[in-house]
């Protein structure tokens, strides 16, 4: 069952990723990215990371991508027109990428070839309780620093998007 779910959602994730890169209209790219994030959330559940899976859907797919969607809808500039690309890109682009990925895949499968297989339920420490313990224990300083980071981001976004007072 694990293999079946992994294959299905990995195919959806890769299909979504290809669609993000290849679609002309930004809204189609945005929705494909939401599909990628959803399938990654399922893969996190298979890896035992239940809190991270839910945080992925709530924060990434439910807030950040909605922000992207708002900006695209407000700007409403339509799809991208395809200009001519250089011949080298068109001919060599996909094969080089595929070769790169094949080399990485080969290296990974050689170096991580121990008998560790990911079973659903093999990692029980992904609950909110253990994440809370780690965040408020060992990682307290980074947590407080990220709250300052978010404050800075809010201030920056408000200042940038403000109308100029003449």
């Amino acid at each position, binding site marked *: 069952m694990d293999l079946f779910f992994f294959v299905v959602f990995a195919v959806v994730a890769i299909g979504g990723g290809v669609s993000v890169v290849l679609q002309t209209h930004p809204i189609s790219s945005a*929705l494909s990215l939401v599909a990628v994030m959803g399938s990654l959330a399922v893969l996190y559940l298979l890896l035992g990371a*239940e809190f991270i899976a*839910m945080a992925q859907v*709530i924060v990434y*797919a439910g*807030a950040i991508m*909605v922000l992207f969607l*708002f900006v695209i*809808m407000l700007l409403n500039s339509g799809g991208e027109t395809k200009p001519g690309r250089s011949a080298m890109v068109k001919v060599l682009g996909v094969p080089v990428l595929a070769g790169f990925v094949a080399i990485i895949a080969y290296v990974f499968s050689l170096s991580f070839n121990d008998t560790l297989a990911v079973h659903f339920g093999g990692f029980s420490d992904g609950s*909110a309780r253990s994440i809370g313990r780690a965040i408020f224990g060992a990682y307290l300083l980074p947590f407080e620093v990220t709250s300052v980071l978010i404050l800075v981001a809010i201030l920056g976004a408000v200042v940038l998007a403000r109308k100029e007072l003449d």
Partner: protein
Amino acid sequence: MEFYVISLVKIAVVFAGFMTVLAYLQWVERKVIAHVQVRVGPNRVGPHGLLQPMADIIKLVTKEGFLPSHVHKFFYLLAPFIAVSMALVSISIIPFGSEIKVFGYTTWMQLTDLNVGILFVLAISSLGVYGIALAGWSSNNKYSLLGGLRSSAQMISYELPLSLAITAPLLIAGTLSLREIVQSQGGYNFGFLPRWSVFAGPFPQVFSFIIFVIAGFAETNRVPFDLPEAENELVAGFHTEYSSMQFASFFMAEYANMVTITCITTILFLGGWQPLFPASLGSNYLPPLLLFFVGALLLFNGLNPRRRKDRFSLPVFAVVFFLLGILFLVPAVKPILVPFFWFAAKVGFLLFTFIWIRGTLPRFRYDQLMSFAWKFLFPAALINLLITGLLVALTAK
């Protein structure tokens, strides 16, 4: 193997029940608002208009579904699909009762239980925003776009006080799983006061309850927060270019969201399926007593009817209620029906409040609505969380 069969049976039962509740919730809303406005409401189709939802379903299904030529076809068809599926998925983790034994199989009255159940509900409601935003944008109509964007902005703004209001009772319950939240609200203080979150622990969660209900109104686009939808009556809203089944999908999604929010309110604050007073004081006999009382009332009104048609319909309803009351006394089905009755009573009371407020209050202007969320409700929820956290930490063992 038997796990799958039991799950399929549970899914069928819950789905059938949920669809019926959605259809008749619309009837209840129309009748209650009608009586609030001193008129009668639907009463022609079937006795007291009880077959009105059937007539509406037939009308919506047989209406001509057209696809306007200027819309973005894929997103136009995808948007109601997203809205409805996200609204219906949340029913899968709601616990309707405790553990029951049916034909020798032990199971819980809940489709499934997640460790992070309450986060799942938040995640699904965040994804429901996409249906509305896409509907507004794909209709290629500036009024729909504005209505869709306003509605989505309202929904994501009110998700913040909603989430903060949820965390305070979670601090008291100590778990994220919905089943365990309800179980932690069992038992009685002083022998008769139930340990529901609104009465419980170091800090009774009254403020969280109020903030959650207000944010719930805004999340489901109900009055007094329904300006993006009421533009429908003025100019247009996000579902202006939709017809027949797709419009019905948005409608159904709104009612399903309403039922989901009231179920979550009941589970978090009002103790889910826990009864109001202990079984030793007779709480198992309250449901059949209530049903017998309603049946007697209907019989009395049926025997001295104000209209000639009521002479037939009201005694029939009285007999139905008496039979239901007798069903609650059968010991084989009592452990199934009594917790479900308490859950349904609390959810029904909250739904009646939603409908009552719709008939009573005027709606907010959009800027009032947004500043209420950001400038009042969000700080209030934050302060409530701080106080709850402080009291829980001080009284922790």
